[in-house]
């Protein structure tokens, strides 16, 4: 479904990704684990089109998308839940969700909002509250809801567990599993490698801008080097 081939990107003169290749097949949860600063967020930003790339190819459902602007990639079916939520803080919960359906603004988003409220009932109660006033966990649910409003086929999730209590982390990862069972493909970036590998089908290890290991989630969990570096055993 998604194929990233030899992607290079950076900030100014500093290269953050030195030729990264990954594949995500339809219906999978693929996780990308790695330390802070390894380039995970840069890779997701590049896939969404908000990060310029210097070399390499990105194709989605067989179509080359490097030259397609970010907003049009959402219409193709790629939505992202960015690191740190990045909600529209002064706008209400409901407005955040409505804007999530921007690429379908001529149609009605009412049913989709209803579905998100069914998935996360607490958002319905808070629908008139400014997004910036929500707790961290509520904000994360809203960020996921907003991304789902675009009706994506591929969901890019960047550090959904960041700054959340362990019980919320489990809740959010369960939501991700549910989404997968409903046919959504997920590329999940996490520093919490143990939790991410527990729900993923396959995984990649990204270290200082290059893929250093890949395979089935279970294999990666058994990999000695990965265990020492990321799982703390």
């Amino acid at each position, binding site marked *: 479904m998604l194929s990233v081939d030899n992607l290079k990107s950076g900030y100014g003169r500093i290269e953050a990704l030195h030729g990264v290749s990954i594949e995500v097949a339809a219906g999978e949860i693929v996780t990308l684990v790695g330390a802070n600063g390894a380039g995970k967020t840069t890779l997701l930003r590049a896939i969404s089109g908000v990060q310029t790339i210097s070399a390499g190819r990105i194709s989605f459902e067989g179509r080359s998308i490097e030259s397609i602007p970010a907003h049009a990639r959402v219409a193709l079916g790629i939505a992202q839940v960015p690191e740190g939520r*990045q909600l529209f803080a002064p706008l209400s919960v409901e407005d955040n969700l409505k804007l999530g359906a921007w690429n379908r603004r001529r149609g009605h988003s009412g049913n989709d909002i209803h579905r998100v409220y069914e998935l996360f009932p607490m958002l319905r109660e808070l629908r008139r509250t400014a997004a910036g006033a929500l707790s961290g966990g509520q904000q994360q649910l809203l960020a996921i809801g907003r991304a789902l409003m675009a009706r994506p086929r591929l969901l890019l999730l960047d550090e959904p567990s960041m700054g959340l209590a362990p019980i919320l982390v489990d809740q959010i990862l369960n939501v991700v599993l549910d989404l997968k069972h409903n046919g959504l493909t997920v590329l999940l970036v996490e520093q919490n490698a143990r939790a991410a590998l527990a729900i993923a089908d396959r995984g990649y290890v990204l270290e200082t801008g290059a893929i250093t290991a890949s395979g089935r989630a279970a294999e990666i969990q058994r990999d000695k080097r990965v265990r020492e570096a990321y799982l703390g055993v």
Partner: protein
Amino acid sequence: MAEFLQFVFSGITVGAIYALVAIGFTLIYNASDVVNFAQGEFVMLGAMGTVFLGHAGVPLLLAGVVAVLITTVVGLALYRWAIVPAREADAVTLIIITIGASIFLRGVAEVVFDKGFHSLPALLGSNPIRLGGATILPQSLVVLAGAFFIMVLLWAFIDRTLFGKAVRAIAANRVAARLVGINTRIVVGASFALSAAIGAIAGILITPITLTSYNGGTLLALKGFAAIMLGGIGSAVGAVVGGILLGLLEAFAAGYVSASYKDAVGFLVILAVLFVMPRGLFGKATVERV
């Protein structure tokens, strides 16, 4: 007392125009982080365009509509050919670009129009209305009504429509706006167009009272800038309150001190705000939880 009331009337009238200029600044600043010093030229183009189309025999109402449309196109062109190519530039560079655009538009206006001062006939005639010992021009009421109408429409657009919410979304978080699929170029371009149209209408409304000329926009831009500094940059309420307060301060300074110091008030306000309360009256206290 009658004197005081007189200053209030003239202060509020001019202040309403400053408020419209300040709203134009705010709209563009929120959507693009650009402080657009060509905002005053939008005001001038609306006024001068109407005057000269009128001279060419176009009925004044139609002339006004066409002048607003032309100014809107100029606003779009400014965004497309001066701001978009420099989108990676820092704030100071962007400010210098808009100052350059302002000088360019003034130069073009000097060539296309002329160097003279021009007026437009007042919409409701020019017999002053007596009110509590003071007088008010009927055109002042037109200015106030027009400004009020524009602000209500703008509020409805920004607060009630999805497109308006997209403008606010971009102001709140530009990258997130792109990630939800908003074509930021179109929305920011629309903000420039809207801002230009508001400026042009302000110019047409005020010309029967203050006259217009090719370089009449420069000072207005500086006054509008003083108004947003006073009100708090980025705040729409601040732009309106700042504009009207500045108009009143100027009127009182001109009346009680000396008319020659009137234009200095705006700059004193900028200095005072920077020294005492750099965020202005309604400056954003950003609330964000991470």
